[in-house]
């Protein structure tokens, strides 16, 4: 068996942290990563998890040069659409470069699609950077629609000082 997909465990957080950084490097934003395996453990494996995670694992004999057997992950959470109800948002999907081309990415995504079915979620949403051609093509081939293109949706953010200032003025 070339690989398996399973739910992440608290002990996987160091591997997840490593791969989060690898993905951030690929997305050209490594300096934006502020959390470590400690926060991942607290926030994903406590009494009130803020995310769900599946990992792809290979047998020992196929481990990477550095000895890693956890070679891919998908991190997602439940969201809500006031138009159609329960949804899942896929936050991160990543497979280490040397393990690509075997269908691991597809298997991780199919696993999330299965969760959608089981939990009666009507949609899977996620964001992709406009220059990330390989990912854009992969998702479009699976029937994904680019809503920024089609409907003009833009993602906005309040953080840092802007968020603090607003909070100070709360009634």
């Amino acid at each position, binding site marked *: 068996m070339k690989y398996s997909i399973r739910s992440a465990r608290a002990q996987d957080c160091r591997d997840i942290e490593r791969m*989060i950084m690898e993905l951030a490097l690929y997305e050209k*934003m490594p300096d*934006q*990563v*502020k*959390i470590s395996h400690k*926060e991942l453990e607290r*926030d*994903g494996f406590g009494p009130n998890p*803020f*995310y769900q995670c599946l990992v792809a694992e290979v047998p020992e004999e196929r481990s990477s040069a550095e000895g890693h057997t956890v070679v891919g992950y998908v991190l997602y*959470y*439940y*969201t*809500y*659409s*006031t*138009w159609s*109800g329960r949804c899942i*948002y896929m*936050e*991160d999907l990543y497979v280490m470069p040397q393990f690509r081309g075997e269908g691991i990415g597809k298997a991780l*995504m*199919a*696993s999330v*699609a299965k969760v*959608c*079915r089981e939990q009666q979620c*009507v*949609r*899977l*949403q*996620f*964001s*992709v950077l*406009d*220059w990330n051609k390989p990912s854009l093509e992969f998702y479009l081939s*699976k*029937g*994904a629609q*680019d*809503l*920024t293109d089609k*409907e*003009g*949706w*833009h*993602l*906005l*953010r*309040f*953080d840092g000082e*802007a*968020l*603090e200032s*607003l*909070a100070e*003025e*709360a*009634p």
Partner: protein
Amino acid sequence: MASFNLRKAEPKDVPDILRLIKELARYEEMEDQVKLTEKDLLEDGFGDHPFYHCVVAEVPTEHQKAEGYSVIGFAMYYFTYDPWIGKLLYLEDFFVMKEYRGFGIGSEILKKLSETAVKTRCSSMHFIVAESNQASINFYKRRGALDLSLEEGWRLFRIDKQNLLKLSAEE
């Protein structure tokens, strides 16, 4: 009209919340896309596993519209997770009835949500806006929001139920 009150939504507010959801969808020219019912909202917001949180704005009896509504605005949000910075507050819907705009109610709702974000250790508040909705984009940018689609190139994607079923069968 000076006085209004912001409070956490209760199960009895569900009919008003659905009414306002439909009004917002009408404003976004997508009213026929609202499939959610009062039953869904009740189960999903006030059951064992809440998928969303809601804040409502209400006015005192003497300022009610002819039809007798006292709930005249709402904001629906939930918590999401960014593997780079941790917990986020995601603003899903935000609406004040046309007749009650211009009194600062929207601003106060936004401040209340920002305060909630800071109190619950969220690094950031995210939301999407249609690029055709310049009034809203300007409202948010005036208060320090950043357009991540423009600044960083993020595009929002969706896979709908039909394609999800196909994908989950490929596992």
